[in-house]
C-alpha cells in the first residue's frame, strides 16, 4: 500500500482508514451466498412479524368445512389447511415467530452468560479459571436432552422454559470460545502496552479485549441460532414444544409428517421454511467467518 502523498498538496483532511470491521463488512458484501442468505432471512423475519396482516385468516380459527384442504387460492389458503382446518400459511408464519424467537432469545441468553463467564475465566486465569472451566466440563457431560425433558415434565410445557433450557445448554460452548479468545488476546503485546501505559484493568477489558473477542463470537452466534431452532423443533417433534394453539415449525413438521401421504403440503411448507432458514443462517455464519478471518488479510 502506498502512503506517499503528493507533497505540497497541503491536504489537511485526514485520510480515512478502513477498520477491520469495515473490511470484514466489505468482504461479506462480496460473498453472494451470504447476501442471499441475509435477504432471505430478512424476508422470513418480516413475514413472521407481519403475519396477521398477510393473510385474512387468524392462526387459530378452525374452518370445519375445510379440514386438511390442499392449497387453494379461492379461499386464500395458499398453503392449504391443517388437520384441524386451520390456515397453514398463517400457522407457518406464527411458527416462524416462535422458532425465530426461541432461536434468538436462547442464543441471547447463551451469549450473555457465555461471554461474561468466559471472559471472566480467561481474564482472571489461574485457579479461578480452571475451577470455572471444570464446571463447564462437568455440565457438558450431562445428558441435557434428558434434563430438558424432565424440566418439561415437572414444570409443564412453557415457552420460556424452552428459552432458558436451550440457552443454558448453548452457553457452555460460548463460554469456551470466549475464554479461549480472551486467553489469546490477553497475551498479545498490545494488552501489555496498555498495562505499561497505566490503563486500568476494567478499561483494558472494555477497550481492548472485548472488541478483539467479538469476531468469533458473532460467527458462533449465527451458527447457534439454527442449532437452537433445530433443537426446539426436535423437542416439539417429541411433543415437548409449545402449547396449542400456538405452534412452531417443529410442531407443524411433526403434524405434517403424520399426514405425509394424504396431505403432503402440511409437511412441505413448514419444512421448507425451516430448511431455508437453517441454510441461510449457516451461509451467513460461514460468510461472516470468512469475512472476519484474519488469515485472509
Amino acid at each position, binding site marked *: 500500500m502506498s502512503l506517499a502523498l503528493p507533497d505540497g498538496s497541503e491536504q489537511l483532511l485526514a485520510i480515512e*482508514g478502513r477498520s477491520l470491521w469495515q473490511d470484514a463488512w466489505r468482504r461479506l458484501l462480496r460473498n453472494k451466498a451470504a447476501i442471499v442468505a441475509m435477504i432471505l432471512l430478512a424476508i422470513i423475519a418480516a413475514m413472521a412479524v407481519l403475519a396477521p396482516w398477510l393473510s385474512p385468516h387468524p392462526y387459530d380459527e378452525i374452518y370445519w368445512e375445510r379440514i386438511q384442504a390442499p392449497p387453494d387460492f379461492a379461499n386464500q389458503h395458499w398453503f392449504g389447511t391443517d388437520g384441524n382446518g386451520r390456515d397453514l400459511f398463517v400457522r407457518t408464519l406464527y411458527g416462524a415467530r416462535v422458532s425465530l424467537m426461541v432461536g434468538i432469545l436462547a442464543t441471547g441468553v447463551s451469549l450473555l452468560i457465555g461471554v461474561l463467564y468466559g471472559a471472566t475465566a480467561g481474564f482472571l486465569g489461574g485457579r479461578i479459571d480452571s475451577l470455572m472451566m471444570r464446571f463447564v466440563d462437568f455440565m457438558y457431560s450431562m445428558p441435557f436432552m434428558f434434563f430438558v425433558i424432565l424440566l418439561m415434565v415437572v414444570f409443564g410445557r412453557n415457552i420460556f422454559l424452552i428459552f432458558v433450557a436451550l440457552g443454558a445448554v448453548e452457553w457452555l460452548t460460548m463460554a469456551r470460545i470466549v475464554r479461549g479468545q480472551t486467553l489469546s488476546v490477553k497475551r498479545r*503485546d498490545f494488552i501489555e502496552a496498555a498495562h505499561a*501505559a*497505566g490503563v486500568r484493568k476494567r478499561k483494558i477489558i472494555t477497550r481492548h479485549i472485548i472488541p478483539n473477542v467479538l469476531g468469533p463470537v458473532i460467527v458462533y452466534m449465527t451458527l447457534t441460532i439454527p442449532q437452537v431452532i433445530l433443537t426446539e423443533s426436535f423437542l416439539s417433534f417429541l411433543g415437548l414444544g409449545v402449547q396449542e394453539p400456538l405452534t412452531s415449525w417443529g410442531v407443524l413438521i411433526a403434524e405434517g409428517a403424520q399426514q405425509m401421504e394424504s396431505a403432503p403440503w402440511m409437511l412441505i411448507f413448514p419444512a421448507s421454511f425451516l430448511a431455508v432458514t437453517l441454510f441461510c443462517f449457516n451461509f451467513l455464519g460461514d460468510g461472516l467467518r470468512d469475512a472476519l478471518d484474519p488469515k485472509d488479510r
Partner: protein
Amino acid sequence: MSEQLLRVEDLSVHFALPTGFLGGHRPLKAVDGVSFTLAAGETLGIVGESGCGKSTLGRAILRLIEPTAGRVVWQGQPLGALAADALRGLRRDLQIVFQDPLAALDPRMTIGEIIAEPLVTHEPALGRAAIRARVEAIMAETGLLPQLINRYPHEFSGGQCQRVGIARAMILQPKLIVCDEPVSALDVSIQAQIVNLLMRLQASHGLAMLFISHDLAVVRHVSHRILVLYLGRLMELAECHDLLAAPRHPYTQALISAVPIPDPARERRKRRIVLTGELPSPLDPPSGCVFRTRCPHARPICAEQIPRIEPVRFGHSIACHRWQELPATPPAALA
C-alpha cells in the same frame, strides 16, 4: 555521573514452573541478581542471546512482571513499595517500545487512538482538540504524516508501526524508555531509520533509555554503557568503548568476536572465538559460573562457586573468577 534516575539492585525474577501433576514447582531463574544504575539522558544497552532473560529484565524494571527479589528505585523511590494507583501514575514517566511492532498495536483502533491512549489515560481532562494536536505533533516528530491519524495498524508497514509504537511511548514526554528489541523484527533497511529516530528523540528530550537487543552491532551504536547478560546473570557491565576495546569477560570476548568487521581484510585476519555447545536451559543452569559449560577458560573453581561481581575499575564490573589472569583483549580481535 549526572542525575541518577534509576537504580536496579539485585533484581531477580524467578518463575515457578509447574512440574508434573503433584503441584510441584521448579524455579526458572529468568533474571538473577542483576544490578545497575541509569542516569538521565543515558542509554544502557542490554545484550545477550535470546532466552537470556533480557526482555524479562526490562519488564521487571517497569513492573509489568513482579520481581521475585531485589529493588527497582526510581528517582529515589522504590517502585515495589508503591500502591497500584501511585504506580499507575508513575507510568507516565516509564514507557516501553516492543519488539513486534504490529502485535503491539490494537488492530481495532486507529493510529490516532493508539497514540492518544497514554495521554487520555493520564490526562483525562484534556479536550478532543488538544488531544488531536498533541497526537499530530508527536506523529510529526516520529516521522509519521499526521494525515494518517485515522488509519489502522494493518494498513501500515513494520517500520511505520514501530514509529507509531514510539509515538505512543513518547506522547507523555517520559523520562525512561525501555526498548525491547525494537528493530530486530524489522527489515534491515528500516532498522537504521528506527535506531536513528530513537537516538534523535533521546538526544532532544534527554531521555534515559534501556536498549535491549541480541545484536551487539546495534547496541554498540546506540549505547553509552553496555550490560552483558547470560542466563539471567550479569556477566560484564562497562562503558561502551571500554567494553568493545578491552572486554574482560570470556563471554563478552566471544560476543564481540562474532560481530563482523566492515573491513574485509581485517575481518579475515580476525580470529573468532567460537562458542562450543548449546546455550544451557535456564531451567537447569550450570552450577557456579553459568557460562562455564561454554567457557574456553573454565577451571574447577568455576563449577563450585558463583563468581562475585567485581569492579575492574570505576564503571566497569565483571563476574568472573579468572578475569585478572586472562588477557584484556580477545586475541587478535578488533585491534
